[in-house]
């Protein structure tokens, strides 16, 4: 078990800085998810923890110790790679054993550990198979077993579920949460999928272009996004954003916060538009409502609205978010919010 | 810790050191030494008596008819071997491209000579090309065709050597082209068929461009290989008759102990010619190549 601290870390590739002067503390024993669009630097952070892509400057501390000069194999971390990086010429057993052998664990001990881990992840009968004879899900388990057997103080995972089909992915998500609960070690998990981040994380670290946008619990990130980027990245479909006033302030609301009706609604914000598209998903329906200025996404339990029909979109005051010209969230306790709420009421399209 | 960082820096150099030592000692240094030798009258018995004679070796070389004869022979040999091999191996490859047992057997058969020593091949053909008791003339005769003097006349000797070289090498090149043809995705041909492309067009607009990298590889490897031809000539004809099959390397070989400086100058010329050809190929053809 260990906490991870980044202190003023910079990482450059060919003299271009991908990450500049970053500070971050990942708490001990927590399931932390690094999330963001591709190229945002999340994998770079993970590789710095592992030591396979060391920082250009600054310090990385694991459990309070500066590991900048410690070789990857001696940091007490284990990693599950996106493509699993299973050694193709070794059997499942040899794959799991490889790290133990390198760490000079005695043979008896090794055998016991491999077999008990094999049982834990459900590979018992497959230990002597070659990786080429395994399914995608089984390979995933080999990668997990290989990481677990070393009893690392930090688990690193780089998009480990992205190569699985949708059904298996949901199942593995649950298993990973349970695994974390059982082991109680620090998990650092990288993904570009906000659903994965929301469903698994204790703490989400949202990144964009090498900068941390917000670091908080999933609930906090959903209900109080720190900026427009966070608001639009988290949630599916993303938050609707509209221009509000001349000082560049924007307002936002989530598709699921809005109500639809054929009659005008007496919500705080009321917009009239026409249904442009309709996606029926079963338990709910997603509508695109077009006004003469822009389009809004609305998520509704009702599927009775039809395309090309005029409708009203209503949003209550407490579900509205405001963002300043710099993109940052304007706190709902700040005095300006009253002004903006008034302005929002004025948006009614008659 | 510091030692470790130093080792990380040095490690790649240590790992390539033996290989680089071999290359520097047996390729780079000899090339430089060769150039140096070509400006000397070298005395094999007494090195101290070697003397610098400037461009004399080159002057003598370019004033020597035998050298021109060898150069011209080498060029004809190269042109003959490269052209014949390219055309025949492409035809064979197109003919045998479909993977079937029969085709695999024929391919394996055509490839057989390639793994056998050129000495054996040369001796074998020398025997078959024997004018009075040889197999080839007997076959020609029984087919009602005129016989040939093969290696024994200066008119036919070079062509005979070319035939042997093509026979020896063609299997390898045909195999490479078959593999190239088989790696063209069938969907491209299906798309072309939907676009109503004719066979002729199919070959010149799709097949040929798609295998152009392999054709280019064959061309370069074969040209370099042909320019250094020696074994066949040495075993089969000793450069004869009447120098009809003397090649540049054979020419270098002839003077290797009697006139080292002169021989080295010829070596430098060979190196420059091969280098210039390779460079030319890359300049002219690489632009027209289609790389997948």
């Amino acid at each position, binding site marked *: 078990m260990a906490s991870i601290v980044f202190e003023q870390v910079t990482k450059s590739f060919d003299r271009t800085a991908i990450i500049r002067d970053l500070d971050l503390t990942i708490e001990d024993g927590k399931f932390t998810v690094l999330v963001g669009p591709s190229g945002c630097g999340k994998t770079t952070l993970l590789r710095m923890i592992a*030591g396979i892509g060391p920082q250009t400057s600054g310090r990385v501390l694991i459990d309070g110790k500066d590991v900048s000069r410690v070789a990857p*194999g001696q940091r007490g971390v284990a990693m599950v790679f*996106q*493509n699993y*990086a299973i*050694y193709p010429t070794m059997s499942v057993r040899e794959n799991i054993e*490889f*790290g133990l052998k*390198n760490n000079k664990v005695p043979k008896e001990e090794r055998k016991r550990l491999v077999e008990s881990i094999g049982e834990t992840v459900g590979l018992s009968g497959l230990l002597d198979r070659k990786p080429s004879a395994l399914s995608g899900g089984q390979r995933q388990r080999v990668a997990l077993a290989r990481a677990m057997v070393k009893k690392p103080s930090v688990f690193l995972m780089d998009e480990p579920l992205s190569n699985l089909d949708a059904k298996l992915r949901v199942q593995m998500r649950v298993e990973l949460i349970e695994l974390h609960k059982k082991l109680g070690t620090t998990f650092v998990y990288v993904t570009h999928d906000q659903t994965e981040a929301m469903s698994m994380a204790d703490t989400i670290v949202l990144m964009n272009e090498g900068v941390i946008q917000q670091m908080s619990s999933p609930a906090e990130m959903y209900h109080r996004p720190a900026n427009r980027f966070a608001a639009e990245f988290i949630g599916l479909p993303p938050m609707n954003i509209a221009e509000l006033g001349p000082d560049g302030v924007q307002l936002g609301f989530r598709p699921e916060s809005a109500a639809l009706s054929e009659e005008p609604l007496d919500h705080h914000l009321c917009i009239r538009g026409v249904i442009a598209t309709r996606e029926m998903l079963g338990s709910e329906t997603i509508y695109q409502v077009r006004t003469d200025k822009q389009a809004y996404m609305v998520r509704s339990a009702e599927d009775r609205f039809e395309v090309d029909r005029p409708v009203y979109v209503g949003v209550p005051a407490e579900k509205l978010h405001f963002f300043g010209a710099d993109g940052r969230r304007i706190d709902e306790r700040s005095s300006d919010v009253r002004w903006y709420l008034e302005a929002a009421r004025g948006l009614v399209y008659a | 810790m510091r030692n470790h960082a130093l080792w990380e820096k040095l*490690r*790649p*150099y240590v*790992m*390539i050191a*033996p*290989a680089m030592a071999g290359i520097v000692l*047996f*390729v780079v*240094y*000899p*090339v430089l030494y*060769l150039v140096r*030798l070509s400006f000397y009258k070298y005395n094999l018995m007494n090195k101290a008596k070697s003397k610098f004679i400037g461009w004399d070796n080159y002057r003598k070389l370019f004033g020597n008819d035998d050298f021109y004869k060898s150069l011209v022979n080498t060029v004809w040999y190269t042109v003959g071997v490269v052209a014949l091999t390219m055309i025949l191996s492409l035809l064979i490859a197109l003919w045998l491209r479909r993977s079937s047992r*029969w*085709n695999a057997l*024929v391919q*394996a*058969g*055509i*490839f*057989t000579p390639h*793994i*056998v*020593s*050129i000495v*054996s091949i040369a*001796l074998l053909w*020398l*025997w078959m090309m024997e004018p009075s008791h040889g*197999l080839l003339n*007997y076959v020609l005769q*029984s087919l009602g065709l005129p016989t040939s003097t093969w290696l024994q006349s200066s008119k036919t000797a070079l062509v005979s050597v070319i035939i042997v070289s093509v*026979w020896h090498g063609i*299997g*390898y*090149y045909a195999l*490479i082209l078959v*593999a*190239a043809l088989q790696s063209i995705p069938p969907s491209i041909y299906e798309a072309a068929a939907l676009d109503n492309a004719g066979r002729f067009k199919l070959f010149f607009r799709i097949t040929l461009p798609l295998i152009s990298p*392999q054709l280019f590889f064959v061309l370069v490897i074969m040209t370099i290989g042909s320019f250094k031809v*020696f*074994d066949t000539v*040495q*075993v089969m004809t000793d450069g004869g008759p009447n120098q009809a099959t003397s090649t540049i390397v054979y020419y*270098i070989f002839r003077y*290797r102990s009697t006139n080292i400086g002169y021989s*080295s100058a010829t*070596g430098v010329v*060979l190196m420059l010619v*091969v280098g210039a050809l390779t460079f030319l190929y890359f300049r002219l053809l690489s632009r027209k190549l289609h790389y997948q």
Partner: protein
Amino acid sequence: MKTMDLRYAKLTLSAVLKAVVLMIFVFPFLWMVSTSLQTLQETTTVPPTFVPAVPQWNNFVHAMQAGPFLTYARNSVVVTAAILVIQFVVMIPAAYAFAKYRFAGHRLLFGLVLLAFMIPGQVTFIPVYLMLADWGWIDTLLPQIVPFLANAFGIFLLRQYFMQIPEELVESARLDNASEFKIIWKLMTPMSRPALATIALFSFVSHWNEYFWPLIMTNSNSVRPLTLGIAMLRETEGITNWHIVMAGNVVLVIPILIAYAFCSKWIVKAFVYSGIK
């Protein structure tokens, strides 16, 4: 019906043509074996003898007594085996360094490897001979072995292969606390078996069959390989004893042909692999 006939004729023609082409490439070897078992008289008859009346096994004894063939054979085996072993020891770490490390000057140094690949022994043999003579190596087997310690073609091919192996595997092994030596030995080498087999085969064929280099580098029979021994048969046996020359030739060729007959599929694949890259 007519189109059926035409189709049938075409197929037959193609099969006949294939048989003829196959014969053009295979028959000479059968002819070699046949000649090696004939008497001198049989080799001179018209029409030629295809099947000798009584196989003359003595031809082989005769051929083998024309020179120290056991020595030649031993030299060929020692030289080829030594080259293969040394080349692999030298090549694998070099290819790994060129594929997986970035270091100052790696472009230039790799350029030298490519240069070595382009420059044939026929250009460099004079200076190399003088150098080795200076070292007192002539009349040992070393001049036939040491100049080939770096296999430029092999380094190039293996580097390409190593570069295709995903970086994550190496990183994963480093996280598993494996040393670089272990990564090469336990991971990279087993994974590149196809490339290694191709390189070994190429190297074996070219050095077992080498003629030019030993011709230059040897002055006495005690260090000559089989190829030279067979070529010299022609000088010692004159230009008429073709049955003896062919017997010697059979000794040189048959081991390779038998090996080829058993694993031609595999060998063909390996050679094709070299050309497709």
